Structure formats: structure tokens, C-alpha cells
């Protein structure tokens, strides 16, 4: 298994290089730093000197891939590609276009993001599984039917409306929690209660329906028939046999999302004014801060690949039948 993981890790490095090349092409080839500078400084009334200064301030005044003027190794290292893209592999993200250190910002904003995303993930997963279990246990009854109808209706509502509705009802009408904002320490609880609730409710529809199909698929298998034929009661069959086996695809499927929790949620964080990585990204997009967007793309890819790796490992841990060689 270790050989397998090592192989996957090497593969992951190659994928990261690919991601790196794609983002480099997007941000430096399709749009040259000149274009970006012009956009930042205002399109019409901009002098070549202003562009040159803007580029020099941010280190964009070097050649893209190969520096003829430099000596030795510096011919390759003293370039935009090396300084802006290769450095990311060392998690050295440099400065944002407004001059702040990106790595420092990330280390600050990571915690509010996690404080929101982790409870949403855990509570949401638990509730989704519970509802799916209920619908699957009472399958082919009115409870199941209306449960599915409710799920379909809930997943047909845009996440934005859950947020807007929650803010209006809970915060404005009933005045239970603040509409938006954030505070450190235990004060965060009252700011986080509503976003977590909204996030959980917004995800129940699609999640519960999806897990229900997994449970139903499992119920139709032969070992379930065997268990019934032994004379086990339906409750025992369901909770001892079906539930355990269905948890394999459910949990391994959920693992991939765990590393991405760091990235936070774009929409919820900016609606509720939580200073996490999600709102950081949105602010960067809206301010057209390419340095930050580039870093977030890289981090997101790293986390996603980590998620894939964890998924593979979790398969081997949970399901002894799975062997990699």
C-alpha cells in the first residue's frame, strides 16, 4: 500500500505542475502583465511610465521564462515564471497587488473559514445520513415519497435564497443573532450559528437524496436477502448490515471534501461578513487582484489533490477487499 501511496503522490506532483502551467498561461500569456496593469490603472488615461512602474513595484518587469541578461542559474530563476509560479511550490506566495503578504493573510483568515466550514460539514453530513436512512428504512411508503419530494424541492432552491431567507427571518424579524459580522473566541458562536444552520439546511436536499439512493442500492443486494432469509428482523438487517456497508461509499465520498474545507465558502462568508478565505477570494476577484486569485487557485488544487489521495487511502482502510498493487 505504501508503494501505491508513493506512486499517487508522485502523480499528484505532476498534476500540480500541470495546474501551475495552466494558471501561468492564463495569467501571464493570455493576459500580459501590461494588460493587467492597464486594467488596474484605468484603461484610457495611462502612460507607459505608469505601467512600467506598476510592473516594477510588483516584480512583473522580468522576462517570462528566460532571462538573457542574467548569469548562470539566474537565467532561469530571475524570471516571472520562476518567481511567481515555481515559488508557490514552496508555499511562498509573495505579495498581493495591494502590497500585503498573502501567506500571512491566509494564516489569519484560515481559522474563521474553518470555524464555519467544519461544523457545516460534520452536522450536515450527520443530518443528511439520518434523513437518508429514515427515507430508506421506510422505503416505498408515503414518508419516503414526501421525503423525496421535499428533497427535490429543497435542492431546487438556490443557496442564495437560504441565506437571504435566514438573514431576514432569524436576524431581522426575530432579532436572534446579528445579521453579519465576526468576532474572535467564544463570541464567534453567535455570529456563526446562523451561517452554520443555513449551510446545513441548504445542503440537506441533494445530500439526503443522494445517500438515499446509495442505501437503496445496498438494500437490493444479495447479502441482504441472505440476512432476511436467516430470519433477522428488518431493523437488524438495516442497521447492522445495510448501514455499515452503505457507509463505505458515503464516507469515502465525503473524504475528498475535507481538505477543501480550508478554502471556506465563497458565498456564505461574504454574505455573513466572515473574514475567511472565501471572502478573501471574493474580494480579490472583485478587486481583480490577480496575485491573490493565482495563489488561491494553487492552494485549492493542492487541497483537492490531497483529498483524492485521502480518498484512496480511506478505501484501503475501510474496505479490506480493496487492494492496490
Amino acid at each position, binding site marked *: 500500500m505504501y508503494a501505491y501511496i508513493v506512486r499517487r503522490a508522485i502523480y499528484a506532483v505532476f498534476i500540480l505542475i500541470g*495546474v501551475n502551467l495552466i494558471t501561468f498561461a492564463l495569467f501571464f500569456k493570455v493576459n500580459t502583465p501590461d494588460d493587467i496593469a492597464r486594467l488596474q490603472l484605468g484603461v484610457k488615461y495611462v502612460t507607459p511610465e505608469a505601467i512600467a512602474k506598476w510592473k516594477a513595484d510588483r516584480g512583473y518587469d522580468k522576462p517570462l521564462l528566460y532571462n538573457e541578461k542574467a548569469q548562470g542559474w539566474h537565467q532561469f530563476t530571475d524570471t516571472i515564471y520562476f518567481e511567481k509560479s515555481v515559488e508557490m511550490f514552496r508555499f511562498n506566495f509573495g505579495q498581493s497587488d495591494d502590497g500585503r503578504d498573502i501567506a500571512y493573510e491566509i494564516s489569519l483568515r484560515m481559522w474563521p473559514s474553518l470555524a464555519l466550514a467544519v461544523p457545516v460539514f460534520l452536522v450536515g453530513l450527520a443530518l443528511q445520513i439520518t434523513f437518508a436512512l429514515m427515507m430508506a428504512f421506510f422505503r416505498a411508503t408515503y414518508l419516503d415519497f414526501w421525503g423525496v419530494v421535499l428533497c427535490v424541492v429543497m435542492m*431546487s432552491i*438556490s443557496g442564495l435564497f437560504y441565506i437571504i431567507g435566514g438573514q431576514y427571518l432569524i436576524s431581522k424579524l426575530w432579532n436572534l443573532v446579528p445579521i453579519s459580522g465576526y468576532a474572535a473566541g467564544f463570541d464567534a458562536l453567535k455570529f456563526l450559528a446562523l451561517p452554520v444552520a443555513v449551510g446545513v439546511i441548504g445542503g440537506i436536499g441533494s445530500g439526503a437524496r443522494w445517500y438515499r439512493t446509495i442505501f437503496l442500492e445496498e438494500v437490493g443486494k444479495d447479502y441482504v436477502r441472505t440476512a432476511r432469509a436467516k430470519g433477522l428482523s428488518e431493523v437488524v438487517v438495516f442497521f447492522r448490515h445495510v448501514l455499515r456497508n452503505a457507509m463505505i461509499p458515503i464516507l469515502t465520498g465525503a473524504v475528498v*471534501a475535507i481538505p477543501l474545507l480550508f478554502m471556506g465558502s465563497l*458565498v456564505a462568508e461574504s454574505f455573513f461578513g466572515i473574514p475567511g478565505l472565501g471572502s478573501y477570494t471574493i474580494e480579490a*476577484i472583485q478587486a481583480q487582484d490577480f496575485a491573490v*486569485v493565482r495563489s488561491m*487557485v494553487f492552494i485549492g488544487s493542492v487541497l483537492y489533490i490531497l483529498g483524492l489521495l485521502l480518498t484512496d487511502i480511506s478505501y484501503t482502510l475501510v474496505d479490506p477487499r480493496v487492494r492496490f498493487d
Partner: protein
Amino acid sequence: MPILPVILWTDALIYLLLAVVAGFVWYVRRHAHLRAPWWRVAQTPAAMSALVVLALFISVGLLDSVHFRLALPAAQAAQAGKAVSRDVAYAVEVKSLLDVLLASIANRPERTYSAPLATHAYARETLDLPGADGKPGKQLRTYPRLAYGGAHLRDPERDWKADVLLTGFRGVALALPLWLLLSLALVAACNSPERLASRDFWHAVWRGRTAVPWRAILITLALLLLLAVPMILLSLDYHVLGTDKVGLDVLYLSLKSVRTALVIGTLTTLVMLPFSVLLGIMAGYLRGVVDDLIQYFYTTLNSIPGVLLIAAAVLVLQVYIETHPDLFPTSAQRADFRLLWLCIILGITSWTGLCRLLRGEALKLRELEYVQAAQAFGVSEWRIMMRHILPNLMHIVLISVVMDFSGLVLAEAVLSYVGVGVDPSMISFGTMINAARLEMGREPMVWWSLASAFAFMLALVLAANLFADAVRDAFDPRVRVGNGGRRLAEVES
């Protein structure tokens, strides 16, 4: 009036899509094994009700996809400085057939917000009262009358309720005969005359026992008409769903948003479909180096977070548009190009799921006897892929197209909120929600824009979901498609 047809990029693709669908229907009708699952869809009450609703949305969207520029009247053209003897000058504004149909409600702008069916503005304004014999009059803080909403009422306080009720009642009264007519036409078009004449058939319809769920279809149609006809009648005199910040009718905005949603939901998959199908089949069938390369390619694309890739690409496009203004003469063309770009980039982020699924399926199919037989006969690999593998994967493609639709419509709203969605000048549910959100804090709340966007989106997405479920169940209840949408759904939560 002479017109200059304008075919936007997305229009052309919509026409192409229509042609593809028409060809597909023709093909399905000729093949029994394809007719069978569609027949199962046609027997599902929820799916057919959803289809009625979808048909309404699609017809609105299609009407909104025929674009042209109206010729300016000669006098205006002279003013514009373009009237050189015989040349016809055309308005810069690109209009659609829907705009012309809705001209009566689109061209009645108020000054700012007004509530649904209101006769007075939402906010107080200071009015100058004309004083007696030329003296400056008093100023009055009051809710001014709207320019168009309920303008025909002489005394709104007294007449408003009666007028609204009466018009609504007239609408209901008109809807019923219209419903009878439409239902008869619909049922007659799909059934033989002998069946129509038989009493048993209508009895079965009444009891809901026909093979095609006519009862559900007709009830849906009735509900739609009962809602639509009174609204149309009321919209002649009022702003049925109120007006937005710049005084535009919200009903008009909602109807215009339908096209944007449909374009995003359908063209996104259409644009990337050839790539994902071709690459998926090639990876699964050819194996070896090709497989490795394609897998590497889609894993790499997939590992870039979807929203961020979209954001990066849209930022790139913005820079491109800013630096090449000469390529986009009208704002409609600019907005349309951005919409198309958004479709492409959304497609790039979401095609990988389908590709992986097709690869897995092709891996299974290539071991089957009929493929091995074809190989033994010396059929070329390309031909095997196209003639033997592809037709047996089409159900997966179809399921994933219909399942992705609703997720994409929802994603549009979120992306527009993030600021990387459609052009701000383009009317869409996302821009509507975004504009309305800023007014949440006002007292009393401006709720009607949000409520309209909510209702229209819910109707569209719910219908799409119900229909997609039926299609999936009919074609292959075991295929786990639909999880592809979850990547986009992660954007949501």
C-alpha cells in the same frame, strides 16, 4: 417596419441545439429500442407536468432568442446623422421578439421602486404643489402616483381593490375557456379520433387511468393558465410584480432572465459535449498512453477549484474586452460574448465528470463479444468507437445532460453574485437577486424582486429536476450520474 436581423453567438448555438433536438426526435421515432424508454418517461405524471411547465419556459426563451435591430424612423435617423438618402438607419439597441411582445410592459418605466400592483410609489418624494395665481406653492412629502401603474384609476383608494379583483376575475373567466380549447387541441393532437369519441377514454382521463397521464398534464395546464391569464390582463394596467430600482417592470425582467438561465443550462453542456464524449471513449477504448494522457488532462483541470477557474477565466475575458473594444460594437454583443464565454468555461469545469463516467463504461464495453467480433472482422478502431461503443453510451450522455441542467441554472445565480457571472448589463436571475439583495435593509423591505426571482427559478429548476429524474429512471436507474452536479453544488453551500 424594416428590420435588420441580428444573430448573436448564443442565438446561433440555440438554433443549432434546436436542430440537434429535432434530429434526435426524428431518430428516436424510427427506433423501437429508443422509443421504449421515452415512452416510460411519457407515462410518468410528474415528468409530464414538469414538461408542460418547461415548454412554457422554453417558448419564452426561444421568443427571446430571435434578435433584430429596428429601423429608425426617417426623422430620427436624420438626427443620428446617418440618413444618407436611401440608406435605412437602424437603432443601436438589439431587440428580441419577446421585447416586441412585451413592449406594453417593457416600455413603461417608473422612476424607481414600486410594490406589485401598486398605484403609488414605494418611497416618499417631495412634490411641489402649484400655488394659487402664480405664487410658489407649498411642498408636500407624499407617495406620488405612478406614471403607469394604475394610472387609469381616478380615485385609487376607492377603486383599486375593485379594479384588481374585477380584472383578476375576468382573467380567471377567460382562462377557463382557453384551457378547454387548449386541452382539447392537445389531447386531439396526440390521440386517434376513435379514442376521442369514446366515453371510456374521457372517463379514464378523469380517473387518471390513461397510459399517458392526461389528467396531470391538463391540471398543470389549468394551473398555469389560471396564473398567467389574470397576470397578463393585470399587466396591461399595473406592474404585476412591481418595479425595480430604476423603475423597470419586474415581470419583464423575470421573463428576460429565463433565456439567460436556459442558455447557461443547455449550451454549457452542448459546448463541451463533443470533447467529453470523444475523449471519454478514446480513453476507455484505446487504453495505454492515450488513456494516461486524457486522465492526466482531466484530473488536472478537475483539481483547479471550479469557481476559481471560472473567476480567473472571466477576469481574463474582461481584460480582453477592455483591450479589444473594436471587436464588440454593441453592448448586447459584448454581453452575449461574455455569456458564451461563461458557458464554455463552466463547461470546461464540469465536463470531466461525464468524461470519467464514459471512460469507465467504455472500458467495460470494449471487453464485450460484439466489440471483439468487430475487432476480429478488422473494423477500424475509429469505426468501432463510433458505431459500436458510442451508441451504447448515449443513454449516459443524455442522462448527464438533463441532470446537469438544474445545477447550472443555480450556479449562474451564485456566479453572478460573486461577480464572475454574466455581464452586469445582461438580465438574469443572478443579477436580479444581486440587485435586490442590496435593498434588504430597507424598511419596509423591497421583497418583490427577490420573490419573483425565487418563484421563477424554483418553477424552472423544480420542473427540470422532476423531468431529469424521470429520464434517468427510464434510461438507466443504476447509473450514478448526477453526482457531477455536486461539484457545482459545492459552490452553492
